[in-house]
């Protein structure tokens, strides 16, 4: 584990979690794409339920 200065430590604790925002955006985006794929790519082409 790298040693960091007290200033660096404070900066990290006060900074926004940009990596988390990016990961969450990727996850939510993938889910939306996956949902659209299943809806338009699998569900709708199967036609009406009979």
């Amino acid at each position: 584990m790298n040693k960091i200065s007290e200033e660096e430590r404070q900066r990290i604790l006060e900074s926004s979690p940009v990596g988390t925002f990016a990961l969450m955006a990727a996850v939510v985006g993938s889910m939306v794409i996956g949902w659209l794929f299943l809806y338009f790519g699998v569900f709708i082409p199967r036609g009406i339920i009979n």
Partner: protein
Amino acid sequence: MNDAAERKLALSHLWVAFIAFIVACFMGEYQVLERSGLIPALDSPTVYFASVSTHGVLMGFVLTTFFIMGFGYYTATTSLKVPVWNNTLAWSGFWISLLGTVMAAIPLLTGNASVLYTFYLPIQAHVAFYFGATLLIVGSWIWCGIMVVMFKQWKQANPKQPVPLAMFATTANALLWLWTSAGVAVEVLFQAIPLALGWIDTVDAGLARTLFAWTLHPIVYFWLIPAYTAFYVFVPKQAGGFLFSDEAARGAFIVLAVFSLPIGFHHLYMDPEQAKGWKLLHGIGTFVVSIPTLVTGFTVIASLEIAGRLRGGKGLFGWIGSLPWSNSMVLSAILSLLMLILGGFGGIINASYAMNAMIHNTAWVPGHFHLIFAGTTVIMYFAIAYYLWPMLVQKPLFSNSMALIQLWTWFIGMGILTTPWHVLGLLGQPRRISSVVYNTLLTLAWKPYELAMIFGGLILLGSACLFIYNLAKTQLNPAPTEAFTQQIEYAESIHPVKELPEYLNDFKLWNRVIAVLMLISFGVPILQFFFMNTFGSPGWGY
């Protein structure tokens, strides 16, 4: 504080939970083998359905309830720093639940309760099964009562102080379980037991399914909340950082408790006994419950990001590599979140009113709930056990390397088991079948996926054995020559909370909100059974 009594109490609960778990794992592997038809000598619908029912009850009711009680007692005593209130009562809850488990196990194992873990009426089990299930729940209600009393006593002794987050989450789960279990309790007491005793000849299956739907969704959150608790109160500290937001965590637990309850009708989308408007209302509520899960995902990942950066990680994603991957709690959390993403996606498909028709009652559904329960949830039960076991038995963990191998194999095995399961659902394989007695191009296309599932199940079984072996060796090893001093460590928030508004520190308001929401979402749907003609099967069957 000498917590020997609490350690013994927690350890006893956890051992019952994990013994149930390992027995159920062997059954699970038998079931994928039987279903594949690979070994003709195994073909037996009678044995298969007895096994599936036992597997479901052991995993869904016994593992979870005992684990949650044991973990809850230890969390309460260590976070509040007080002894468990009324130790005698706690033990009576343990023995009542254990008696119920044994009573239910006898008809299950003898094929007299092959009603699956949902025991939907009018499929009927031996009355001992229903009495056993009732006792298991009654024992857990004692736990709920003790948690609520400890919560209230601490608040009275520490006015205006924020209740420790771990205890806040545990109490949220206890209240959630009291609300959750009411539906199935009414069904069992007023329908299943009278039917099994021959006091009534018929039951209204629609009413029974509606009451079970009351329980069926929030029970998942009852199982999941200990995993979320560990995410918030253990993972940040174990990763070397801080909890991103204490308030967000409390908000997530409140929304989980409130909104997981009035949404059970997404299990009844294809049922005829409820109108589509009610189903749509519950369907919308189901999507609301995804919010606390997203909040949890964000808060936990943000906490990990802070820890990774404090450990020297740079760049947008460089902090991920800096995390202590050899820490079993951190590794479990990461693997659990990965499975939560995949399982959560499957859940969104289930909850989508139209698309539900595509996967309803198909193999997709057990694929989904194995990923969420056996994957996301149970891997965190492992992590909690690895973390607490040394403190409970006052000896160091037998092997951390073995724990890491066990967690990775559980994750890999779960992926190999559940991915084909989802695909089989999309290919049209029904769930709850013991075998396929005809060969068509469709059913032949299922074979490769079933073979993959056998392999995945074998990896999981090996992983489960490693888990039990590690815990048993830890406990049975000779005591260390030096005093064991490890203490439980709860994560601190970046901005520690000094005071909180009452709605983030108590459940009085939220209990009222739940009551109103339950009245809205279940009032008319249940009452209708007493006012409409149900074609010869009156409400309670009398």
